[in-house]
């Protein structure tokens, strides 16, 4: 923590960056902090409650943050993959951001609780973490961390859904998606949703019902998750942002599995690797094509 604060202070006072995007203590758990004054760096923290993926704030669509000037951002190894995604898709330039990667040994699903990490409390995405030692960074802080516990909740739920009949699954998802109020918080929270105009906002032609009908909700989530296929880093910001607690992480997890299974690809922290749906292989499986 001291290391992080000193680094932030140095970057700000030297004028290398204009803002440090990191974590601070909030009223309800940990929240994002935007430090522009070197004197305020002591509020920065990093621990196992820092579940948020802050890379959404690098999103060029967020003018109120980009106007602050060149940012430094605190990322976990897994979040660095979002930075790689933005670099890969030419949304930001490598020279215009300072990446402070913190070694992380797993984060809590619910950052407000502050309990110890265990198989019940750890985020579902931490299982099998391969980014404990971040590769994409300017500064690496913290000590090497042990492997996080594994939370099987999502894997088990996906398996349970797969075992259902198609009609049962249809009904299950109807129940979930009928709660959607189409606030599009899942889009706003997503580091990879940076389109200037979203298809869901288009009126001519209108692709997706703009009101909260089950039909529109289904189309919206299907489209959103398809657009994320192979780009999603599974940070679960969508699920956390959802005011109706729709298990959007299931969709992210399922599509992640599909992409891994079909194209042998897991979202990577190497910006030079191309996303799987932007490339192809001559011998992709086509068992579903007549």
């Amino acid at each position, binding site marked *: 923590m001291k290391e992080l604060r000193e680094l932030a202070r140095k970057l700000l006072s030297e004028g290398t960056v204009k803002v440090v995007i990191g974590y601070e203590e909030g009223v309800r758990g940990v929240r994002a902090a935007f430090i522009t004054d070197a004197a305020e760096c002591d509020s920065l923290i990093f621990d196992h409650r820092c579940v948020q993926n802050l890379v959404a704030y690098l999103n060029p669509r967020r003018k109120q943050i980009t106007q602050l000037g060149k940012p430094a951002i605190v990322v976990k190894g897994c979040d660095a993959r979002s930075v790689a995604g933005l670099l890969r898709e030419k949304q930001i330039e490598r020279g215009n951001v300072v990446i402070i990667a913190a070694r992380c040994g797993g984060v809590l699903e619910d950052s407000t609780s502050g309990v110890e990490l265990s198989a019940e409390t750890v985020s579902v995405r931490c299982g099998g973490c391969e980014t404990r030692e971040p590769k994409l960074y300017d500064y690496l802080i913290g000590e090497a961390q042990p492997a996080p516990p594994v939370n099987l909740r999502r894997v088990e739920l996906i398996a349970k859904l797969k075992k259902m009949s*198609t009609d049962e699954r249809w009904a299950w998802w109807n129940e979930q998606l009928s709660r959607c109020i189409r606030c599009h918080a899942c889009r706003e929270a997503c580091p990879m949703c940076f389109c200037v105009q979203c298809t869901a906002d288009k009126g001519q032609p209108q692709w997706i019902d703009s009101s909260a009908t089950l*039909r529109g909700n289904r189309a919206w989530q*299907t*489209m959103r998750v398809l657009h994320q296929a192979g780009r999603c880093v599974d940070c679960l910001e969508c699920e956390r942002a959802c005011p109706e607690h729709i298990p959007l992480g299931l969709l992210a997890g399922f599509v992640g599995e599909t992409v891994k299974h079909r194209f042998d690809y897991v979202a990577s922290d190497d910006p030079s690797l191309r996303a799987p749906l932007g490339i192809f292989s001559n011998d992709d*499986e*086509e068992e579903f*094509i*007549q």
Partner: protein
Amino acid sequence: MPENTDSKSVQWSPKVVAFVCNWCTYTGADLAGTSRLKMVPNVRVIRLNCSSRVNPLFIIKAFERGADGVIVSGCHPGDCHYSTGNYYARRRFAVLYDLLDFLGVDRNRVTFSWVSASEGNKWQHVVNETAERIAALGPFRPFAEKCGEMR
């Protein structure tokens, strides 16, 4: 799907929307027509430049607007008029195919196929087989009606 009382009525016959590429499948379908091959009249063909022009939203939209089934068809791999369009399409459809199933849409309602310009017979088979399969499944009303209800 539940409550398919319509399927028993005489009037209902499946509505299938086919998104086909201009260079292979459309020409193949044309050949099937000029060869006077017998095909069921349930398929509405929509001609596009390439199978990679098919946005997965087209398929969802077709279902929303009352289609009971969808066919997507393009050139065989290696034969794409634009060299690589169908390879990209294949990756996209693979993800869509899995996702539809996960969201509870019966995958049998969607047919992906490669039909070349000389395969009039294959097009006939795809059309007849799909229409038959959809007829057995019954109308796909949930997407069109049940999902349209306000919550």
